[in-house]
């Protein structure tokens, strides 16, 4: 059982201000500023190459920004805060020579915030075959296993980078249901980067649109809909 850190109350889960990133003389992110409140499901939308993956790597603390600040729950992001963030990499791969069960055995010991109960629930929900070798899994199966690894932890912030790329329909629906199921308690924040809007449109609380390394807009989805616009139409307006 974890004790809720009282000092986290009221602080936004993610806060970026004036973030700049230059990789090999190319300006990948330019003056990026936005906020995501705790407990919300935020979407990071933008075309390919907009800088989404770089931004997410910044949030996990893997890359330091060249300018500006990145704060998670009020404190600066960095590799020492990895225990508070559960990150699903884009096109990542788990060790192919392990079976799903073996990997989960390791994961349970490697992640200090692993929740065995959740793991069991999710194995059923996501239909993971523990005996199957990761190298023999289809893309959909491996995607579900990777998501399970992320969701079985109790980290307060979950960042998913393109969780649906190349995944079959049924797996996608299972993944979306699982994500929603994890949200319902209200104490986890999700940031999902995707350019697959139709899948996730109904899930987002708020969206941040990013293109060419700059923030093109940040909206509360309910407000958008009150004004008669859908997330998709908003995206088209900004990017098309």
């Amino acid at each position: 059982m974890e004790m809720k850190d009282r000092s986290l109350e009221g602080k936004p889960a993610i806060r970026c201000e004036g973030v700049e990133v230059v990789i090999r003389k190319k300006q990948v992110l330019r003056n990026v500023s936005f906020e995501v409140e705790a407990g919300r499901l935020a979407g990071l939308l933008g075309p390919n190459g907009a800088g989404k993956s770089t931004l997410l790597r910044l949030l996990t603390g893997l890359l330091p920004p060249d300018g500006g600040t990145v704060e998670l729950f009020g404190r600066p992001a960095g590799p020492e805060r990895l225990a508070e963030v559960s990150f699903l990499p884009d096109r990542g791969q788990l060790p192919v020579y392990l079976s799903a069960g073996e990997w989960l055995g390791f994961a349970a010991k490697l992640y200090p915030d692993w929740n065995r109960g959740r793991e069991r629930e999710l194995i059923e929900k996501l239909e993971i075959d523990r005996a199957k070798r990761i190298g023999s899994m289809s893309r959909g199966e491996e995607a579900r296993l990777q998501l399970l690894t992320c969701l079985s932890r109790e980290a307060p912030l979950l960042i998913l980078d393109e969780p649906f790329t190349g995944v079959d329909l049924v797996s996608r629906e299972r993944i979306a249901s699982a994500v929603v199921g994890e949200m319902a308690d209200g104490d986890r924040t999700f940031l999902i980067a995707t350019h697959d809007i139709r899948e996730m449109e109904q899930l987002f609380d708020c969206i941040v649109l990013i293109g060419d390394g700059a923030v093109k807009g940040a909206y509360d989805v309910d407000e958008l809909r009150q004004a008669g616009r859908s997330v998709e139409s908003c995206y088209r307006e900004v990017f098309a």
Partner: protein
Amino acid sequence: MPPGRNWTTEDFRLDPSRPLYEQFTEQIRAMIAKGELAPGERLPSVREMASGLRVNPTTAMKTYQELERMNLIVTYRGQGTFVTREEEAIRRSRRQLAQEAVRQLTETARSLGLTPEQLWELAREE
């Protein structure tokens, strides 16, 4: 008490340009009014609804709050959410639906320059 069925995406038709909770509220109200949801029938929890329909739990919560405000559903602590058994509330919602339908009919009639009755006659003409 065993839970009732959970909703699937087939049960609803959604327009992404309008607030989702409003649409869920309307359509669930219609289900109650038509009797597709029996009085006293148990509804899925907020979490189950969100998970089954793949919508944000906040949306599901707002939907139930609205429906509760309209007295169409009741939540009993520890037991779940149920369709109201109150006849009056259901009848009231049926009347509201009927009024809405008639209003639309009247609007269409007006746009054709007819009264609702004339519109009705016109439709039945061969």
